């Protein structure tokens, strides 16, 4: 099977206001290339502010990349006119992190799900049938379609958002931290659901998360992103068994209960009373985006203290 998504040298520069911002801009995504196989489950992991979401939005052409190409099924999205791009949009969908803000509170679930279908001119009977089938797929009774988002729990809402993403029969689904807002016991339900529907509808996933454990569980290929660049990309087993990049190693070591156990760190306080790994000087990359300037105690390991929240 060939690749469904190919990204070639994607760069995204955010131009802020002010003299400096407008002139230099902030490179949120820096020369990223990768491809996702059909039916693949590609994981993108990194800390907040490293450009994961920006990259996802660039791939979907929601925020077109500053330079570089995105090929969907061999077609360069950048070369399409907006009308044709819209046809392609049908084939790729996104699920956001926060189901509270991604559902319109004034629309019933049925209305939220039927919007896209109305747009393509599907008649009411067919719409109802389809929506009921999708809601059933994500484990929500079709009879609940007339309810409003606030009547559902967070886990149910995320299921509804997933059902909505599926209304246009997409081939490619971007999952941007889909379970980060959910409790552990609910998280497992949604993860199982995502894996089931992937199998059933033979979807291709781009799974974004800050949780390397979760990504490793879900995905067959993992790319680690740091400061806008993909620093390492490997099949999951390989990445875990043999991380080559220093940042990946730091990340793996930081998993609670992972390699970087705390127990040994009892005498980390230096004589002057300062901790070893101190973050002192910060510099502001762009408005509200502060990054630590210091390197960690252990030499040149990256010391991420920045990022907006």
């Amino acid at each position, binding site marked *: 099977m060939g690749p469904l998504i190919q990204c070639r040298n994607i760069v995204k520069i955010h131009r802020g206001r002010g003299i400096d911002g407008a002139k230099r801009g902030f490179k949120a995504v820096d020369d990223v290339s990768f491809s996702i196989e059909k039916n693949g489950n590609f994981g993108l992991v990194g*800390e*907040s502010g490293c450009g994961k979401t920006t990259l996802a939005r660039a791939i979907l052409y929601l925020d077109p990349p500053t330079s570089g190409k995105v090929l969907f099924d061999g077609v360069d999205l950048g070369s399409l006119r907006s009308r044709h791009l819209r046809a392609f949009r049908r084939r790729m969908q996104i699920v956001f992190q926060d189901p509270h803000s991604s559902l319109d509170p004034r629309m019933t679930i049925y209305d939220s799900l039927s919007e896209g279908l109305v747009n393509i001119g599907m008649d009411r009977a067919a719409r109802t049938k389809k929506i009921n089938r999708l809601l059933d797929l994500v484990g929500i009774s079709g009879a609940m379609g007339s309810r409003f988002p606030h009547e559902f*729990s967070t*886990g149910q809402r995320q299921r509804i958002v997933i059902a909505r993403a599926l209304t246009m029969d997409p081939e490619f689904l971007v999952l941007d931290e889909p379970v980060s807002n959910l*409790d*552990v*016991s609910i*998280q*497992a*339900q949604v*993860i*199982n659901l995502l*894996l089931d529907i992937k199998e059933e509808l033979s979807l291709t996933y781009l799974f974004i998360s*800050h*949780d*390397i*454990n*979760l990504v*490793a*569980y*879900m995905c067959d290929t993992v790319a680690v992103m740091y400061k806008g660049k993909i620093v390492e990309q490997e099949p*999951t087993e390989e990445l*875990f068994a043999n991380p080559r990049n220093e940042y990946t190693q*730091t*990340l793996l*070591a*930081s*998993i*609670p*209960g992972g390699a*970087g*156990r*705390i127990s040994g*760190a*009892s005498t*980390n*306080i230096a004589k*002057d*009373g*300062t*901790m*070893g*790994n*101190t*973050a*002192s*000087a*910060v510099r502001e990359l762009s408005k509200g985006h*502060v*990054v*630590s300037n210091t390197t960690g105690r252990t030499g040149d390991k*990256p*010391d*991420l*203290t*920045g*990022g907006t*929240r």
Partner: protein
Amino acid sequence: MNTTEPIITIENLRVEFTQERQKAFALRGIDIAFYKDEIHGLVGESGSGKTVTAMSIMGLLPKPAATILSGSIRYEGKELLSLSEDALRTYRGSKIAMVFQEPAKYLNPAFTVGEQIREMVMLHKGLNKHQAEMRARELLGLVGLGKDGRALGAYPHELSSGMKQRAMIAIAISCDPDFLIADEPTTSLDVTLQLQILKLLKILKKMKRMGMLFISHDLSVIREIADRVSVIYAGKIVESASVARLFEHQMHPYTRLLLLSIPDARHRGKKLATIAGQVLDATNDPQGCVFAPRCPLAKELCYRESPKLIAHEQGHTSACHFAEEAWDL
């Protein structure tokens, strides 16, 4: 385990919230004891009563919405619940301090970090301005913000989220409390930062010989930092044991399922265990076990009778009728 007297003992604490004439049972009778020099992890899902427990100890429950129905909280033998607001103030901050989840929300944006530490020590310890200044420097050094003294004069917005959390910790420990409550202190931080903060808390506990209540929804974080763990579900402690013991042997089905539902790279391709259904609604007051509606092992007895938190070997307590039985989930 500790054989000394606990610093803080909570007994049969019941807290109820009233909102729009609806009653919500936040805590349904909690027993827990905290010891000096021990990090006690409290783990549970959102709405399970973790923060309410912390706020009850601090005497910071919102009034009049919250009512303490029964129970007692004793600090070194003295009852905290019957203290007046003024008397409580001498404990809060100086003896018992707290670190919150979102440092940005709890730091005052209008004052520098230095001023906020000075305020604490001048109020509680009666230091003069100069002494307070020295103390603030010392504390910031301790939490790893002391290299150049920049943080001292910095406003919260000038600091990154990790630095803000360090500043919060500095304020919390400024009066050498005996007991520190850390309510999800690393939840809003990235993993590499999380590890740094966990290390810092562990070092501080050792240095100051504090007792600590560490609240988290994340079992793996708890495993990393705590000495003892209590699992809370729907306002009840369902299980409590030392970390080593709990992760090896669970005596409550909820804990077992919770552990099984954590995604792990080693179990790729296998289905995650799920806990069916929703968390018990707080307005419900079931006669039986709070977990029974979601428990795959629930029997008739579970719906009829609420299990008590019973001690088993090695200080392991569990609130399950069938704790001693070998079940397979």
